[in-house]
């Protein structure tokens, strides 16, 4: 029980400190910007540890973070191999192909009103196919290895990027378009010089959402058949073996990799859409 109360006290203290820090004039500093979310995370972990130990939750239901950490440090080669298989081969390649295809489709759809009226509804439809349904089919088509995982990722990221890009391409102001009209700018010139820059805030929305979807897609697709490596394989296998510490170790790797991936895209966004009010206001 003391574990539980300790954790709760820690939580309250950390929250107060965070609120103070975020409100303070140091809030803009790099250290603080790193420290605040880190402390929040540590708080979550302490709460978790406290609850698991305090309430005596069995390790086969939910292992404490300390046990997970031990597993991580003890199984680095396995985790690394899984990471390469699932994230580098499956998720990343699928992400690049899927986002690229969605982006090009959006531009193509936008180019032709005919396609826009014809393809968009059908595109919505195709892209709304649930992953659990397509994964087995794609595994059947593309084989067990990472290619089928990449294909699942392609299908998963396609829709968010498509929808956001189409919305973004429509997000120009009248005067901005009129200006291009007075130059008699060609379609492509208008696209590259006006509509794509103006669409970027939307496009990055899609790209950000797609980062996490790519990870989920690659991992989940492995549930439906895989070689005997990969994060999804490990997770599904180890759940059956009740090795939940290993399951959570994989999840931790996924979370760290996913956050890093997201952070990368967010940093790119910041560089590309520096002019947008949502970025300009914040230093």
């Amino acid at each position: 029980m003391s574990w539980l109360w300790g954790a709760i006290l820690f939580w309250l203290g950390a929250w107060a400190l965070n609120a103070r820090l975020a409100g303070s004039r140091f809030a803009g500093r790099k250290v603080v910007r790193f420290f605040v979310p880190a402390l929040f995370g540590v708080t979550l972990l302490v709460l978790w540890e406290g609850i698991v130990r305090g309430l005596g939750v069995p390790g086969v239901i939910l292992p404490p973070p300390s046990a997970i950490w031990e597993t991580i440090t003890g199984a680095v080669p396995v985790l690394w191999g899984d990471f390469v298989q699932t994230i580098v081969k499956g998720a990343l390649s699928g992400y690049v192909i899927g986002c690229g295809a969605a982006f090009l489709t959006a531009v193509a759809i936008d180019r032709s009103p005919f396609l826009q009226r014809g393809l968009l509804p059908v595109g919505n439809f195709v892209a709304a196919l649930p992953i659990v349904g397509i994964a087995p089919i794609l595994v059947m088509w593309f084989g067990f290895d990472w290619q089928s995982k990449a294909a699942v990722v392609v299908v998963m990221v396609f829709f968010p990027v498509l929808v956001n890009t189409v919305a973004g391409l429509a997000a120009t102001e009248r005067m901005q378009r009129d200006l291009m009209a007075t130059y008699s700018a060609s379609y492509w010139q208008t696209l590259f010089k006006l509509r794509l820059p103006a669409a970027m805030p939307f496009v990055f929305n899609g790209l950000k959402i797609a980062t996490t979807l790519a990870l989920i897609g690659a991992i989940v697709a492995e549930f439906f058949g895989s070689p005997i490596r990969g994060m999804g394989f490990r997770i599904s296998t180890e759940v059956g073996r009740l090795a939940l510490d290993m399951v959570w170790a994989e999840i931790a790797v996924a979370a760290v990799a996913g956050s890093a991936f997201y952070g990368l895209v967010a940093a790119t966004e910041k560089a590309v859409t520096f002019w947008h009010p949502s970025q300009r206001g914040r230093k």
Partner: protein
Amino acid sequence: MRSVLPILAVLGAIVALWYAATVWLNSQWTYDQAARAGVEVSFGEVVADTLNQDRPVLPAPHQVAEGLWDGLAGQKVTSKRSLVYHGWVTLSATLVGFAIGTGLGILLAVGIVHNRAMDMSVMPWAIASQTIPILAIAPMVIVVFASVGLTGLIPKAIISAYLSFFPVVVGMVKGLRSPDAMQLDLLKTYNAGGWDTLRKLRLPASMPYLFASLKVSVAASLVGAIVGELPAGATSGLGARLLSGSYYGQTIQIWAALFAAAILAAGLVMIIGGIERGTLRRMGMAR
């Protein structure tokens, strides 16, 4: 209905491609079977066979349509073989999950935009939460909920909400921050509080972002509900149909369930698109 013709044209093209793919993907099996039986088959026989296999790699459109029609209209809607029945089970969890997820997403986004502490601490963890493969923890979630007596719709809806809140957060944070400096300054001169700024400026300005997010998130809700159905005993719902079809290699059943799910998702997206158009028109933003 100006859009009927384009849709039909696109559909026609897809169906044609699909038939071609059906022949191509299924022919291997036909040839293998012929080889096992030791007979020669002509190309015409191959085509005929590939379009009517029981366990095709890719079922032909008419097979899927048949399966779909049988599932939708061929059964009493209360029957366990009816896709309407399973679709409804999934839809109800989807809608509840979508409502929870959207509400939560908007609340989080508002918190993030208005409160620095939340901005700095919550966002990174919201992101991390989405990298957890839900299908992996869904069984545990279901087990935990079941142990406190929650079963049926709610655990599924929660998994669905978990998948759907994130697109809303990302889109709304951006949307709520999209008003430009002058628009914000105007309210400052009125000394408008956070609540007024939200209501009168940030929310209306975020509408285009919100709707783009909602479309993504409703599709995610559906996926969540289906994923949630698998570990819940996979007894009813489109997820269960997909899974059992998959388990027994009944490709046609999978595709029929898949299409039912996609029709559902497309319908939901279209409804949101309709609301979007209406709202934007009322706001004078429609073009």
